[in-house]
């Protein structure tokens, strides 16, 4: 016990110390520091450009055009304000470990490249959403689209594309690629892409995309100022496809092909893939490694004109599951990993304090809360009187307040996890969210007496003295015990541990909470049919602007814990209605400051009314090798997107004296000739 206290004291002191250093003036903290995107980057031409030595060699051999011809006339220039450790040098490899195998390289065709950055590092979108965490008032930043204008009436959005960007096979990127991706992939019902026509319905009409010229496109919406459309253009869900390659495979353009051909054209064996991002997938051996190398045609540079990325290669070790990466960082076998397992924090933090540890332990902001989701539905998944009674009870504010007062989040954070990356949560958005304001949160503090009083006020008593309350005589199930089922996904040990900690608190006020830990299939099945009492889950409300469906009702199937009935009947509580209305309001507000004010109002509503019963919030930590530079100290592991997108991969670098050899990867650098020699590669330009 004493040792435990000393431990915690020690960690708290260190954290306090580092927080003092952060204060507000931490030069390496980038969260909310930029007023606009142009403070982070700009599009302009520079007097001279530089390139990686390996590419310069290929140019000398005549296999690649010179760097000036590979870059756009006005490339995307990262400002050094984003580079916390300054401008970098070329070289080194970023080593990772992951538990999935890549299926294919173009996830717009409905398959995945094994996550952990496998998609993001080769895809680019019109805008970038991941970087929003660096803005004081978050909104999507330009990327392949340099700027855009709304029409006066708000029904039209004209976007201007960066001229001179090239794909990794040397072909030019134009508006044709955007249109092909939209019309022939997203809108085509035969292609199982991440978005479909329904995603783009605004004001009851499917959005139309018009090509004005090679570098100008125009969106025509059915509603006025549909701001959400901009977040839909992020490279994560709308990764631009190279039309010159895939038109050859698409049945609409090539009568010899069918949709199966299209879908298997990007399969894992077809390498090197055609990429527009900083890296290109070039080598994949099942159950072994996946290799990405630098894209010779990447369109971004640093302030000195050096073509990015700095790293030569990114390599993934194939592990049977995702937990191995936590151990490989300890031995220095991998260079970066998030720590998403709160129960490992103590051990890994202790290991990082050793001087000889090869990695740095970075505390992230609190972005992942756990909460109890109560089933409010009166017209879905009701199997008997008991279900009906439970739902009605959940819809009563006093009962929800009783639940919130009964649970001691601080004690659970301390007792179950005992590390500074878990703390009590009071509802709404986690404290790491850009929209969080402590003074707007109604905190229901731990008060079992108050909880008991509220329950008694609802008519619950314990006549048989067994410690569990009984339903009042005027309820649907008089005299029965107050039992609720707590559904938890079996794949998350943190959730199970939290559930086991919550149980005794509820029991103490007379609620018999039964834990039910199930496999994924049953878990999602129950949610689909709304046949559950309470689910203990993470909320994903850190980014309500991008994930409004996690906050409240914006459609018939949201929020997932309170869907509409089978015939679309709605039975929302008044505050839920209000939240839904406010959310939908933000969909058409072009002003980021105005939107922020609305989200804050929603925060008040969520916490006052105990929309979900808050328990704890976790901060995922970030572990990275001491060799690598340009990681902001407050980088979130997951906010608008995952860690591999939250700091541009292309600006990370390693000092020369610490670099690892990379010749075995550079042998795969793709040049246009290599593409042409691949059997699967086709191009409309040949």
């Amino acid at each position, binding site marked *: 016990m004493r040792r435990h206290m000393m431990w915690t004291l020690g960690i708290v002191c260190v954290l306090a110390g580092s927080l003092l250093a952060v204060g507000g003036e931490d030069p390496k903290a980038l969260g909310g520091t930029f007023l606009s995107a142009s403070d982070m980057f700009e599009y302009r031409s520079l007097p001279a450009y530089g390139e990686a030595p390996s590419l310069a060699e290929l140019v000398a051999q005549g296999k690649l055009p010179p760097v000036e011809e590979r870059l756009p006339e006005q490339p995307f220039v990262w400002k050094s304000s984003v580079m916390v450790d300054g401008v970098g040098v070329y070289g080194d490899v970023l*080593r990772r470990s992951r538990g*999935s*195998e890549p*299926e294919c390289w173009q996830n717009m065709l*409905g*398959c*995945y490249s094994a*996550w952990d950055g496998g998609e993001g590092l080769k895809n680019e979108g019109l805008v970038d959403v991941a970087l929003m965490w660096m803005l004081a008032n978050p909104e999507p930043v330009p990327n392949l689209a340099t700027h855009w204008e709304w029409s006066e009436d708000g029904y039209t959005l004209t976007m201007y594309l960066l001229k001179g960007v090239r794909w990794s096979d040397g072909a030019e990127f134009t508006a044709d690629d955007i249109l092909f991706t939209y019309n022939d992939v997203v809108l085509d019902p035969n292609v*199982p892409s*991440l*978005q*479909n026509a*329904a995603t783009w319905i605004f004001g009851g009409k499917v959005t139309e995309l018009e090509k004005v010229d090679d570098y100008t496109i125009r969106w025509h919406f059915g509603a006025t100022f549909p701001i959400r459309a901009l977040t839909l253009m992020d490279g*994560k*869900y709308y990764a631009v496809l190279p039309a010159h390659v895939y038109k050859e495979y698409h049945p609409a353009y090539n009568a010899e092909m069918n949709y199966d051909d299209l879908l298997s054209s990007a*399969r*894992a064996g077809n390498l090197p893939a055609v990429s527009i991002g900083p890296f290109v997938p070039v*080598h994949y*051996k*099942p*159950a*072994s*490694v996946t*290799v990405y190398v630098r894209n010779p045609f990447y369109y971004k540079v640093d302030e000195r004109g050096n073509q990015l990325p700095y790293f030569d290669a990114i*390599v993934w*070790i*194939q*592990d*049977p*599951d*995702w937990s*191995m990466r936590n*151990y*490989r960082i*300890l*031995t*220095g*076998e991998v260079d970066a990993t998030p720590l998403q397992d709160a129960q490992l924090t103590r051990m890994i933090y202790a290991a990082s304090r050793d001087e000889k540890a090869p990695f740095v332990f970075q505390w992230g902001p609190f972005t992942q809360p756990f909460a109890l989701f109560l089933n409010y539905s009166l017209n879905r998944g009701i199997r008997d009187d008991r279900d009906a009674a439970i739902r009605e009870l959940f819809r009563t504010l006093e009962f929800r307040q009783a639940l919130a007062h009964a649970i001691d989040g601080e004690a659970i954070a301390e007792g179950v996890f005992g590390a500074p990356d878990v703390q009590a949560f009071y509802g709404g958005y986690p404290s790491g969210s850009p929209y969080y304001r402590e003074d707007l949160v109604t905190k229901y503090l731990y008060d079992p007496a108050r909880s008991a009083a509220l329950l008694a006020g609802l008519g619950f008593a314990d006549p048989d003295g067994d410690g569990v309350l009984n339903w009042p005589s005027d309820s649907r199930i008089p005299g029965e015990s107050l039992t609720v089922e707590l559904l938890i*996904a079996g794949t998350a040990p943190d959730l199970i541990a939290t559930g086991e900690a919550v149980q005794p608190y509820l029991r103490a006020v007379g609620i018999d909470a039964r834990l039910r830990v199930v*496999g*994924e*299939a*049953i*878990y*999602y*099945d129950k949610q*689909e049919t709304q046949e559950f009492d309470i689910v203990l889950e993470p909320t994903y409300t850190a980014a309500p602007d991008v*994930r409004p*469906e*996690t906050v409240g009702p914006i459609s018939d*199937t*949201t929020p*997932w814990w309170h869907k509409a009935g089978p015939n679309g009947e709605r039975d929302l509580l008044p505050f839920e209605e209000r939240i839904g209305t406010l959310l939908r309001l933000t969909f058409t507000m072009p002003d980021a400051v105005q939107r922020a004010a609305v989200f804050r109002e929603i925060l008040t509503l969520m916490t006052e009314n105990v929309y979900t019963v808050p328990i704890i919030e976790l901060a995922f930590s970030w572990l990275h090798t001491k060799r690598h530079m340009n990681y902001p100290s407050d980088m979130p592991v*997951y906010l608008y*997107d*995952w860690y591999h997108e939250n700091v541009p991969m292309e600006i990370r670098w390693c000092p020369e004296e610490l670099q*690892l*050899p990379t010749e*075995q*990867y550079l042998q795969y650098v793709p040049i246009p000739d290599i593409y042409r020699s691949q059997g699967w590669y086709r191009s409309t330009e040949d």
Partner: protein
Amino acid sequence: MMSGYIVKRLLAGAVTVLVISFISFIVITLPPGDFGSALEQQLIRIGGMGREEAAHVAGQLRAKYGLDQPVIVQYGSWLLGILRGDFGYSLRYRRPVTEAIAPRLGWTIVISISALLFSLIFGILPGIYSATHQYSLADYTVSFLSFWGLSIPNFFLALGVMYLLIFYGGVRSIGGLFSLDMALRPWSWAKFVDFMQHFWVPVVIVGTSGTAWNMRAMRANLLDVLGTQYVRVARAKGLRESVVINKHAVRNAIHPLVMHISMSLPWLIQGEIVTSIVLGLPTTGPMLLLALQDQDMYLAGSFLFLISVLMVLCNIIADLALAWVDPRIRYE
């Protein structure tokens, strides 16, 4: 007669395999939900997708691969495919089952056979020594080691070895069969050394329990045989002790081990699952486990199908091998 026996066994075996494949397929698809649910979970938790999008993608997958059809129909079409050599499509790996298994099968068999040989050499020889020097210090040591080896679960041993190697051995690269740096280089002496530095760990760990079993079994059986009449006769005839032991006694004592080894052959293609996961090996074991968890039913079903086919065949081979070794056994 022998050929008649073999044909009968093969027919019975075929029926067995069919029944096993049917039951496994049903059981795999029994839990509510299907691979689509596992995919949804992955998309939400790891892909960061919203629920609606994830559900939509899962729905597309279900429609494409007929996951919403009745199980009997799915089983039937899968079985017909097998007769054509098509083991179905792996939903997780998005490629035909044969393509998904092939890259890993090689290493699985190499590791399994190496572990088997390890357990034979380090099990049988000490077992023989132990039996012939009963109650000596060596015998007690061997017995102790074998009990120890039998009791410790492989995965625990793997964890322990890994811990010792990292924190006391200063080893930089754990798990897998190659360090990352070597993985892409062509074969060379350095690469071979790197391989052996990784390879010994799974072989020894997986081989440990087999070794212990072989030790115990060899010792016990040999002691039994050494007490029989014909061994006494052989000694009385004046044969050298080594001939008595190695030519006569061991040959008879080894029957149960032959059976045991034949029965463990089917597991060669599956390998040790938990140890492979702990050590991060590119083998088929973890693949089978994940397939069962995800309800990737063609992959899992094909695995179980292959294992049951091998089991039946090895059963027959074991019986025939026994008949070859032991002239008292004859089949009609």
